[in-house]
């Protein structure tokens, strides 16, 4: 493990290509890095490969044997493909586009699902502490502390999404992957999630796929712009938004496509 990657870049994506069907690359030769304790936004028009890239980072594609992946991703300098997938997913949590709490579990059980599903046992008091902390971190505690033992699916969409964030951070991951986490939410719930992500930045590194340019501008530190599977441009969000180098980035930012 060398020192620079230890300090600066949590993730280094190296010449990554992903194909759903042989020869048809949804992500093509992407090389990029993600800085520690920052929010990196991945933007681009629909179908450009944002989700595909994001899902490579926790090896989600392995669920579908037909998907081919080339290239490498380093987490803290170590190839994610050399880790056990369980270890990797402990370090890299994920929040999906649609809130997806486990419908058979209570709010409480949902928060500690990562532990129970991995047979990690602990004292009830420790579990209570984790639940309360995680729910406080996502500013859901005051809303649900009276109903911890109700099913998570009774919550509103925005609350469910915060519950899903809580479920991901209860594990105390290094990196949090978020795939359009607010696209199913109303503006107020969206703002809450955005505030939350800004707050969580202190502890976690986040990679955020978003369709919403103003969201990227509001909360991200770095941005990547993808087009047709390729990484067109990446850099500080402020720079990328004000002085894009590539004409395609500029076209996207000015609303010419997407």
């Amino acid at each position, binding site marked *: 493990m060398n020192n620079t990657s230890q300090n600066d870049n949590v993730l280094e994506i190296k010449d990554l290509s992903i194909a759903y069907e042989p020869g048809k690359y949804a992500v093509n030769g992407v090389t990029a890095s993600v800085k520690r304790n920052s929010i990196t936004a991945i933007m681009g028009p629909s179908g450009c490969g944002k989700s595909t890239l994001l899902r490579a980072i926790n090896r989600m594609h392995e669920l579908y044997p037909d998907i081919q992946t080339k290239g490498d991703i380093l987490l803290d300098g170590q190839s994610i493909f050399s880790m056990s997938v369980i270890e990797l*997913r402990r370090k890299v949590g994920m929040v999906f586009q649609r809130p997806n709490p*486990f419908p058979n579990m209570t709010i409480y059980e949902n928060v500690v699902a990562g532990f129970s599903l991995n047979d990690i046992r602990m004292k009830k008091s420790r579990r209570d502490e984790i639940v309360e902390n995680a729910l406080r971190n996502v500013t859901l505690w005051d809303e649900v502390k009276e109903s911890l033992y109700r*099913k998570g699916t009774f919550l509103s969409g925005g609350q469910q999404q915060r519950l899903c964030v809580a479920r991901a951070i209860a594990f105390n991951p290094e990196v949090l992957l978020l795939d359009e986490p607010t696209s199913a939410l109303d503006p107020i719930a969206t703002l809450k999630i955005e505030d939350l992500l800004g707050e969580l930045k202190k502890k976690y590194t986040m990679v955020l796929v978003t369709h919403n340019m103003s969201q990227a501008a509001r909360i991200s530190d770095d941005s990547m712009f993808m087009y047709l599977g390729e990484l067109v441009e990446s850099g500080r969000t402020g720079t990328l938004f004000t002085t894009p180098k590539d004409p395609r980035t500029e076209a996207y930012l000015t609303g010419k496509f997407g």
Partner: protein
Amino acid sequence: MTEINTALTDNIGRRNRTNVRFRYLVIAGAVITVIPIFLIVGSLAIKGFRQINLAFFTQPAPDTFQAMMAASTGDIIPGGIANGLTGSLLMVFLASLFAIPPGLMTGIYIYENSSQKYARFIRSLAEILQGVPSIILGIIAYIWIVKNITKGYSALAGSVSLAIMMLPLIIRSTEETMRMIPVSIREAAFALGTPYYKMIYKILIPVSFSGLATGVLLALSRILGETAPLMLTALGSPAISFDITKPVSAVPLLIWDFYNDPNMVSLVWSASLFLMVFVLSMNLLARSVASKHKYI
């Protein structure tokens, strides 16, 4: 334009009348379907009710002489269906043991590998099995178990024939239930590093519990009334028996016996009433389970 409008308004009256006529037709159809059900339950209840008492559940079937004595004096027939009841429960229990675990596992397997040839093959096999007449399953169990294993009619053979009947029902209901679980739930589990087997028994099975239980209960209620395969396997027995290597009775077998004995006709009604109510409550239970534990 105005012509079209008038044509439309002219039509409204006619369309309303068609609507009303159609509604009456549907109601009439529903009534015609429901009448036989009420007639069946009604006549079973009227004719069978007299015989249902404590002894009906605790005593084995009477022999023909006892029944004849009672019939000649107009008393209610002594004895009951305890031998059939215990035999049925024993065989249904064993059949569940044989059929439910592999049925659930096969259903999950087919769902998880639905694009693979082998899984598709198993699914067609289950479909075919579901269409095989039950008497043929009886013959198969006869050849396998009665001839080769228990060397005689036995509860085991009966259970095996019932298990083969349950298997495709459970496989298919399991697969269909699993299909309803959103992919996002599975992915959420995997994203937490959940091992595959744990995802199945801590997420898939609990989430689809109501669907799985409904499938199992419906399969049970289906085999409870099955008679033909049991004639070739369990045979029937006048006494209460829990020996799985020996013949046992079953409620539908008893109904057949009662029917064949002119002195016991009234027991046909009460045993049928009981079986019908039992199966019906099983179905109701399936429904309440389905609505109570519904997550998807």
